[in-house]
């Protein structure tokens, strides 16, 4: 296996980690919608100790893409210019909101920042869905690896459907996370119903999306992709069943698996391409024509082999420290 393939897999691992971990952070943010202040505070407290570390998975996925596949980084980030700008605004609001929402007890102040958290959760979830669909469908990329379309070209019905699917999936995943983090029985019961609804909605959105994908892209031509996406459906159903039966653990582990399988499915669909050109298959960016030199890839492989396991260990330890459920009393803590 050459280093380019290793790095394709590593980037996939980083994006999988990002979608799983920030997936439930975004989801918890979305679940705050329409909830009273004390419940929103419990939700924020549930992800409070970990969201910042989770967000670094996205930053690392971006940085690793830059190091291993600089052309992908260059083309992708300049292509999604306005979309990434909107995402950055959302993430800026969200990050500052977590810190400032509790600084004053006025409800206007907290409501404003909670709006920031919700905005900062809906928008990235939607935009990542849009981005992923565009990557799978292919973009007008010319012989110089430059995107020659406009921002509005990125918002096709299929892409928007993908965005909605991601929003529902992350909201579902976030609801499942809350099922294992919230102590209040009455609230848990409501969350359980929400989770089942969201699970079924994501399944429907996924089915619609798969139909579009079948008609519009070549991703279902690969058997491995079909298998991974099929397993995703199975995991989603298991997750719904877990939520319905009141087993938060089962629901959360299954939705985690579903997101992992989905991400792996998408990456296998792309392989060995990373950005598909809709102009000609020869113009696609792949793991060879977009890559760094073997020297840099070797260096980065060594770094990743050392540091990714270390990160996993201390992040897992953090989750262990904060494994207890959040009670309504905890929200006055910070």
């Amino acid at each position: 296996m050459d280093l380019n393939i290793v790095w394709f897999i590593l980037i996939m691992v980083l994006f999988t980690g990002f979608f799983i971990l920030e997936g439930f952070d975004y989801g918890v943010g979305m679940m705050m919608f329409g909830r009273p202040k004390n419940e929103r505070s419990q939700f924020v407290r549930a992800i409070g100790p970990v969201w910042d570390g989770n967000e670094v998975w996205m930053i690392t996925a971006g940085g690793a893409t830059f190091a291993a596949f600089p052309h992908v980084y260059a083309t992708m980030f300049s292509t999604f210019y306005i979309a990434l700008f909107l995402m950055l605004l959302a993430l800026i609001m969200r990050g500052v909101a977590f810190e400032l929402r509790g600084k004053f007890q006025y409800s206007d102040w907290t409501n404003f920042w909670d709006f920031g958290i919700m905005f900062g959760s809906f928008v990235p979830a939607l935009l990542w869905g849009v981005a992923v669909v565009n990557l799978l469908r292919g973009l007008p990329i010319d012989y110089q690896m430059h995107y020659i379309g406009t921002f509005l070209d990125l918002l096709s019905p299929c892409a928007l459907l993908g965005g909605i699917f991601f929003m529902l999936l992350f909201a579902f995943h976030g609801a499942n996370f809350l099922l294992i983090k919230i102590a209040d029985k009455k609230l848990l019961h409501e969350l359980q119903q929400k989770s089942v609804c969201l699970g079924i909605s994501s399944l429907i959105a996924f089915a619609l999306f798969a139909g579009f994908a079948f008609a519009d892209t070549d991703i279902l031509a690969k058997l491995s992709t079909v298998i991974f996406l099929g397993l995703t459906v199975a995991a989603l159903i298991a997750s719904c069943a877990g939520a319905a039966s009141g087993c938060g653990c089962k629901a959360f582990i299954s939705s985690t698996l579903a997101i992992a399988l989905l991400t792996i499915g998408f990456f296998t669909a792309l392989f060995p391409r990373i950005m598909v050109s809709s102009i000609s298959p020869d113009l696609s960016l792949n793991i060879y024509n977009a890559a760094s030199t073997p020297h840099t890839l070797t260096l980065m492989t060594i770094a990743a082999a050392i540091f990714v396991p270390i990160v996993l260990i201390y992040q897992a330890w953090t989750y262990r420290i904060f494994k207890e459920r959040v009670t309504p009393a905890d929200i006055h803590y910070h």
Partner: protein
Amino acid sequence: MDALILSRLQFAITTVYHFLFVPVTLGLSIFVALLETWYINSGSYEERIKLKKLVKFFGTIFLINFAMGVVTGIVQEFHFGMNWSEYARFMGDIFGAPLALEALTAFFLESTFIGLWIFGWDKLSEKLHCLCIWIVAFGSNLSAFWILVANSFMQHPVGYAIEGGRAVMTDFGELVTNPYVFGEYSHAFFAGITTGGFLVIVVSAWKIATDEVSREIFVRTLRRAVLYTLVGVLGVMGSGHMHAQYLAEGNPMKLASFEALWETENPAPFAVVADINQEARRNNFEILIPNMFSFMVHNSFDGEVKGINDLQREAVEKYGSGYYIPNDVRGMFWSFRAMVGAGGALLFIVFVTGCLVFFCRDKIKEHLCCLKLMPLLLPIPFIANSAGWYIAEAGRQPWIVVGLQKTAVAVSPNLSAGEVWITLIGFTAIYLFLAVLAVFAAVMFIHRTQITEEE
């Protein structure tokens, strides 16, 4: 204005804004860590309660600042691909590695352990909790190292080759031991100590002057912060001086530009003030101290210092015809004087404050009005930091990577001016808006929080 100039403006605004918070993170993280170490090692029960409250007090200020630094940092990472895609293509093989290492080795550390620190007061042992803030401090300062490794390559490329139209890494060891890194990192590190320490001085002074209840306890942080900041100011001056001497060989054009030395001279005089005429490539008017510039560079009153015009001729010989002089010599010249002036002013202020708190402690109450005015001085280190970066980056122009790629060809070709206008206005607006709210939250917190001996 086209997409290029707008992208440059956007990068300048967002970086300078980002770097308002970064030095505070670098310096205040270490200060809070020292404070907590002091807390867990102190003996008496009353003392411990007070110190713990102080740790939480400055910890809260640190966290507001940290959040601002983190969110504005993501913007910077995305920028390289969003606005500077041709730079990312040309430099990715080299520049991507330190950026990825920064995320992998530093961002994960600081972001994970800050969560443990904030929420772990009752869940971790005292020592483990204190270790968390030390890890945050280490992670922050390590991340500064990686990004300055990347920046130093742009100022002074080493350990590379040009293959297939792009720069490729040949020696990672050379990249991290780039002599430019040493000057830049030590200067930025001590600037962080200075900025973080000075913030503690100002906040403590303000609390002493305005909050009778908490007065006694903030004298303690004021004393510690004076010593801490003093280390920072002296360090920043020493490292800055060394770095400027190194520039004589590392990047002589930058050195000559911020001193507005147009012709090569031996011995070279130092211009205190100058009316710079960039078009005619000379100074219309200048006040000089003879031999001084030679002394600053060579530690001797003789010695040649190369002028801008000779360096331009050398650059034309080396790279072909073109204009290789930074296009804002005047701005660099005055930024340098602002930076050095701010550093000198800080040294004076810290010294005077130190005399007050160490030698005239009983008389502090007579000087409350002076302490009350301290917040007016808070901008000084921030002005120095921004001016310093302006010199570093304006002095790199017209290059994005000195000698290898020009800024003008590095911009993303698919961007229209309209698109960059949208983002430029958007980032500026949200940054101004958040600055107001974050400063408001911090000031109100400082104002309202009283630290007493009761639990």
